[in-house]
């Protein structure tokens, strides 16, 4: 195999997702002329920024071979906590946000310690966290939808604009860049990938798998907290069920982006593209005036097609494997 051919193939593999995104955009442009306007594209980015922000930290759970199902509940709860701190306890904005973030970090620490030191599978640990965090949110908010009236600085986070673009988009892009850098260029990133790829081998190479995993869960909870603050500000609402189901949107985005749930691989930029694709699909359906009750059905099918395309397995190959001559036993 020549070097050029292998490079070309790798390039194609690396950018396959991007081509799928372009394909989707082309289809949507044909279906609706409004799709490809700056205003609309900016709206889509705005709508996916909560998922996009969550992805930047969440991705370390699957990269290290785990999962974090608590990010949705964590996000709702952080909006409620921030509101209580700012509007009931009258803590200054910056401090309130810091305390909220600190709480998120604490939850991640607990998730990480329980999965690594107590050896409870992360699926179970974070599912429990999802439930008890929702419980705390319900208790603190009394189950009510709280409208957040201020402070102004807080509301600016979600709806303010800078150079014509909403601030959450900047937060998402900055966190994506930072997370991409963390995964690809730092010692922690290398260790996270190694632990996910083969924990035993990583351990024998001097990596502390438990420590690495604990940090991964802290990052996941931490960014979920930031996403929750943005969500509360954007919707001017603190409501316990607000973040319900976000964990699955985040998993979808990350998986479309080429991150294996088995660990050892991950792409932060891919996850962002995945989130944007989901956003585009929803946006396209809105532009086409499709009734909301059809949205989940269509979204599900399009995601499935995108995932199949991204696997790079062709139908003839499957048929050959299924019906072709069986290999002689080795």
């Amino acid at each position, binding site marked *: 195999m020549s*070097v050029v051919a*292998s490079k070309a193939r*790798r390039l194609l593999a690396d950018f396959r997702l991007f081509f799928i995104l372009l394909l989707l955009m082309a289809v949507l442009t044909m279906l609706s002329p409004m799709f490809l306007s700056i205003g609309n594209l900016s709206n889509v980015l705005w709508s996916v920024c909560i998922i996009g922000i969550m992805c930047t930290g969440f991705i370390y759970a699957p990269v290290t071979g785990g999962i974090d199902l608590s990010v949705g509940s964590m996000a709702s709860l952080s909006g409620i906590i921030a509101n209580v701190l700012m509007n009931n306890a009258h803590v200054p904005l910056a401090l309130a946000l810091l305390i909220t973030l600190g709480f998120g970090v604490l939850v991640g620490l607990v998730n990480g310690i329980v999965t690594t030191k107590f050896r409870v599978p992360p699926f179970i640990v974070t599912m429990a966290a999802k439930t008890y965090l929702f419980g705390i949110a319900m208790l603190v908010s009394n189950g009510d939808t709280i409208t957040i009236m201020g402070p102004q600085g807080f509301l600016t986070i979600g709806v303010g604009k800078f150079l014509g673009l909403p601030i959450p988009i900047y937060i998402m892009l900055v966190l994506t860049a930072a997370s991409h850098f963390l995964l*690809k*260029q*730092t*010692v*922690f*990133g*290398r*260790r996270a*990938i*190694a632990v996910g*790829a*083969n924990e*035993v*081998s*990583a*351990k*024998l*190479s*001097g*990596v*502390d798998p438990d420590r690495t995993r604990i940090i991964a869960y802290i990052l996941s909870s931490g960014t979920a907290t930031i996403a929750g603050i943005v969500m509360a500000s954007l919707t001017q609402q603190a409501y316990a069920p607000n973040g319900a189901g976000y964990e699955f949107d985040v998993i979808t985005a990350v998986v479309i982006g080429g991150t*294996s749930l088995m660990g*050892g*691989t991950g792409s932060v930029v891919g996850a962002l593209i995945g989130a944007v694709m989901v956003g585009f699909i929803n946006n396209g359906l809105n532009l086409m005036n499709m009734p909301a009750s059809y949205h989940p059905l269509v979204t599900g099918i399009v995601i499935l097609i995108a995932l199949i395309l991204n696997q790079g397995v062709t139908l003839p190959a499957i048929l050959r494997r299924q019906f072709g001559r069986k290999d002689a*036993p*080795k």
Partner: protein
Amino acid sequence: MSDQAAESDLLLVCRTITKSYNGPVVLSDVDFSMKRGEVHALVGENGAGKSTLIKIITGVTNRNSGEMLFEGTAIGIEHSKVASQSLGIAVIYQELSLIHGMTVAQNLFLTKEPRFRAAPFIDIGRMNSLAQALIDRYGFELKATDIIDGLSIAQRQTVEILKALNSRASLIIMDEPTSSLTSSESAQLFGIIRRLKAEGIGVLYISHRMEEVYDLSDRVTVLRDGHNVAVLEKEQINPAEIIRLMIGRRLEERDALHTMCRSNAEVVLDVRNLCSENRFNGISFQLHAGEILGIGGLVGSGRTEIVRALYGIDRFDSGSIAYLGKPWSPDVASSIRGGFGFIPEERRLQGIMGAISMTGNIGITNLDVTRRHGFVSAKKELALARRAIELLNIKPDNPDIPVGNLSGGNQQKVVVGKWLIRDLKLLIVDEPTVGIDIGAKEELYQTFARLSAAGVSILLVSSDLPELISISTRILVLRQGCIIQEFADGIVTEEDVLRASSGLVEGAVR
């Protein structure tokens, strides 16, 4: 031995079995037979063809030519695992195949659970009582409703045997059944084997432990390099003779490679009275600079456990280690910083990260070199990978390729390469050449020799006797967690090491 009267007693007959895997002939014209109710040991060195013969008998792989008869019925070349099971051939592998989380009864009746007569549901009550009846018939201390996870290895083995009995097996093959058993558990197993024999069941027993073979077997078949070199009757069985037959007459010219010598160089590692309960006991030795110290012994004799403890993966209970003259309490990270390297057994499970590139695999042990304030220099990392590729002639030489896609030999070179580019003082290698081709093997041997010449000490654990003897400059042989013999001077033969491993030592040291 093949007169008409004996022929009808024969459970299994194999005639002129030949098998080659794409080229090299693994078994050539092997004759093998088993009588009903016989305990028959199959012995031979690693690579002699024992497992291939078993695979052919059990239908895991097909022979190229030769005849096979089981209970008088001819078995065609296109034999299969399912067919062998339905004929009544059962295998108990070293890695047990029971399903965790299920009960003993569920495992015994897997896929043939008794159903209710009226409805297609499993009759759990009847299943449990049938299972319990079977257990009681053999007088085992088990309950049909015990969950597999709570059982000891020996008890699980018992369940495997029951499973074979439940499927009415008339030939049970046991592959190294005692390697993970304590001596009292082994004794229990031997009782069971005698019981099976009394019931007319043939037991084909594969073991490296000579004393077991001696005690237990009615006959012994010795394989060497794919040939059946001898079938010994009960009265001919004698451990020393078996060892001699297993090894045969080797070329004398290799003797130069087999000469051991003591080293006077600086002591790198000084291990004193290291103990770890149920693993090893009273281990003391010194490792000198540039020495290649071989650690021989059977699988399960504590070899791997000792090197793991020295590297800092597992804790030990008592004893002391001095490294370069200073007291040393090992943990993996500080071992690496201190100049240790570790090449684990089972490359796929412990050595490589298959989905990750060569650069990633090599980079992970060298983060101390490539990092700066927590950031990794991709350029330095790539340079290290390229150096390892060049040093070890890794093919293909593209550092971006996932290591899982390389051949076994090249995978192992990556595992070696990630240490080689470091400033090593001590390299620990555990079974470094299992499953790799001869070319890569030879290259690794040269690499070890080069390292040793440069003053790096090597601890080599190996079951491959020619490898152990030709590479090492000194050999310690372990048996049941203790050093039973040291070979520090003169010529050492495979026979010497095997005899020591089996406990046949005249003047045991220490």
